[in-house]
């Protein structure tokens, strides 16, 4: 693992070819053992976060213990740059691989999609790659590398503070992630306005397990609101596509007097906007807004101008030539926000709060998130309730890592140069 300051490169004093080959081989051997050991262990052990955490922990502890016992022969290797690089690149490759193979599907799906290769993918647990024990072997190597790199560079000084902060932070993230994997509970609560729940349905990797968990309090949905963006009307240009249909190419707002360029030297300018062409004299609705909107637009092409009225309800469309079509359309009022006014209650304690996306409610050790709504059912609201003891550790690790990296890569190099100038 890297130190912030630009220390001399490793192996510089050792004859390059022999030392490099030897060290590279040893690194490859250790990584090979970790990967194959994990692959063999997963044939014997049941699937699950417990097995992953246990085998990863045991493997990491064994590597660290061996590194400490054989400090010169193994400890320095595991805490060295080449081992760190190899582990990081291998983890990168494995993480990338997990995006090329569909994750968490039924075994039959892999056979259907990949044929015989699908069976191999499932056997190697590429179908749940990030929870496979060979991936755990890689994580064990990372933990060992982080730990031993700190041991071999001890003591802590102002020069290597960034290095220690960063590497300790990464270890804290991994500790927190382990707590999350083992002890976090994530569950769904579906409510309608006026109803309440005292338990939630447990989820695992996004799927309901059918198991209920008591919340320890009552969660009542008092009101559910959906806020929408305002409706608007736009001139829309469509072009024919290769599939025989039309594709939206551009749209323009209803601003009057602005000349818009169109393909093939054409142009369009909206001359007038009417909020309600159904009313006598096209009078705008007394309540404001619009009822039956339309625009009158001048289209120019090949030096010829023609004026057309586009009525939204009539879906007026004008052929511009070359297959291009100009029309006047309503833009649906997309959802801007959805939020639930809830009351949470347990003996001696009651709290009322609005829960929205990005604005969860915390109560009795749970975090309650607004995650769902149903456009066909305006009273329905979907919540995710989460209790995760790993989060503080993970976030603390983030802080340590980010501060460490920033210090090591931006502040310490300048301090080093100042020291060099002073010297």
């Amino acid at each position, binding site marked *: 693992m890297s130190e912030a300051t630009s220390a001399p490169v490793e192996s510089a004093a050792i004859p390059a070819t022999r030392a490099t080959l030897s060290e590279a081989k040893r690194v490859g051997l250790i990584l090979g053992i970790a990967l194959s050991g994990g692959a063999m262990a997963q044939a014997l052990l049941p699937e699950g976060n417990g097995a992953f955490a246990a085998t990863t922990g045991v493997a990491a502890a064994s590597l660290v213990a061996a590194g400490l016992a054989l400090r010169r022969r193994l400890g320095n290797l595991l805490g060295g740059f080449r081992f760190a690089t190899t582990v990081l690149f291998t983890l990168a490759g494995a993480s990338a691989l997990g995006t090329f193979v569909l994750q968490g599907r039924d075994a039959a799906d892999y056979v259907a999609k990949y044929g015989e290769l699908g069976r191999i993918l499932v056997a190697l647990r590429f179908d749940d790659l990030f929870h496979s024990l060979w991936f755990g072997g890689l994580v064990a190597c990372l933990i060992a590398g982080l730990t031993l790199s700190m041991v071999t560079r001890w003591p802590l000084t102002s020069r290597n503070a960034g290095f220690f902060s960063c590497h300790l932070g990464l270890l804290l993230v991994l500790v927190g992630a382990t707590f999350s994997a083992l002890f976090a509970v994530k569950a769904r609560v579906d409510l309608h306005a006026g109803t309440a729940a005292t338990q939630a349905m447990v989820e695992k990797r996004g799927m309901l397990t059918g198991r209920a968990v008591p919340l320890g309090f009552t969660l009542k949905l008092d009101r559910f609101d959906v806020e929408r963006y305002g409706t608007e009307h736009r001139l829309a240009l469509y072009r024919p596509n290769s599939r025989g249909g039309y594709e939206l190419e551009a749209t323009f707002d209803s601003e009057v007097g602005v000349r818009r360029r169109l393909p093939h030297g054409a142009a369009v300018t909206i001359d007038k906007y009417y909020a309600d062409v159904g009313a006598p004299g096209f009078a705008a609705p007394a309540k404001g807004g619009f009822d039956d909107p339309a625009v009158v637009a001048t289209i120019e092409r090949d030096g010829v101008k023609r004026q057309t009225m586009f009525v939204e309800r009539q879906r007026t469309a004008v052929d511009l030539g070359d297959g291009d079509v100009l029309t006047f359309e309503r833009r649906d009022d997309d959802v801007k926000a959805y939020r639930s006014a809830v009351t949470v209650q347990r003996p001696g304690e009651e709290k009322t709060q609005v829960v*929205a996306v990005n604005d969860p409610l915390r109560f009795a050790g749970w975090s309650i998130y607004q995650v769902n709504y149903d456009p066909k059912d305006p009273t329905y609201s979907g919540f995710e309730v989460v209790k995760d003891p790993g989060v503080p550790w993970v976030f603390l690790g983030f802080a340590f890592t980010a501060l460490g990296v920033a210090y090591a890569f931006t502040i310490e190099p300048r301090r080093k140069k100042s020291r060099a100038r002073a010297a």
Partner: protein
Amino acid sequence: MDMTLILNNPLFALTTALYAGATALYVAAWRSTKELVGKLGTALLVAGLSGNALLIVSRWVVAGRPPFKSLMESLIFLAFCMAAVYLALEKLYATRAFGAVATLGSLGALLFAALKWDAEIVKLPPALQSGWFIPHVVVYFVGYASLFVATAVAVVQLVRPELKIRVGSIFDGRALTLDGVVYDAIRFGFTLLTVGLFIGSIWAKSAWGDYWVWDPKENWSLVTWLVYGGYLHLRRVNGWQGRRAAWLAIAGFGIVMFTYLGMEMLPTAQDSAHVYQAQ
């Protein structure tokens, strides 16, 4: 997108032209003995950067939200970040040696934006209405821009290995090698990748209750971070400086580009919340 439609936005066309002019002048500055050519290149780039800033601000005003939602908007912002980071490096290292390659990035980003022009402004969904949205995007894109500039310098390092930057770095007043500039830019970019990754994770926790869900974009952000982390470690291994490190820097930026633009190619992307939707 028919290019005629882009003429409805003359500022975009002007900014693109300014970046193209700056690139041409930086190329000419490689051959010219007159410093004025390089200075004109910088002047055009500053003008282009100003136009780019106006593009972002005007879009922000019209859309009523930060203009980072669609691919086109993000490309325009990336072009701005690339130009700004390059100009900062030009000032810091007192050289225009890699101006031609660096400005190609801003020009390329705008030309690609023209191909991906939005048919209309997309509304911001609830999950993106967060205080974390702007810092997450800004930190990442400045990081990407820094890694791009590192790549541009690495290209110069490979193409013109004989080039030495003259004395004048404000960091320490000593001559720097191109290898050193690449290393500095990657260290800065890696710092921002780290902060951006963690901001994204904290935001995901506040929006959905999970700080990590193995979403393809998350994974590739992690891959990018791991690869540059590997680069920074590998530089300490004997024989991994100079040309080999330059090639690795270029490969690293290839992964950045895949993370940014390639997600829809992945079979696992269908459930991702991060893929740019076709407009």
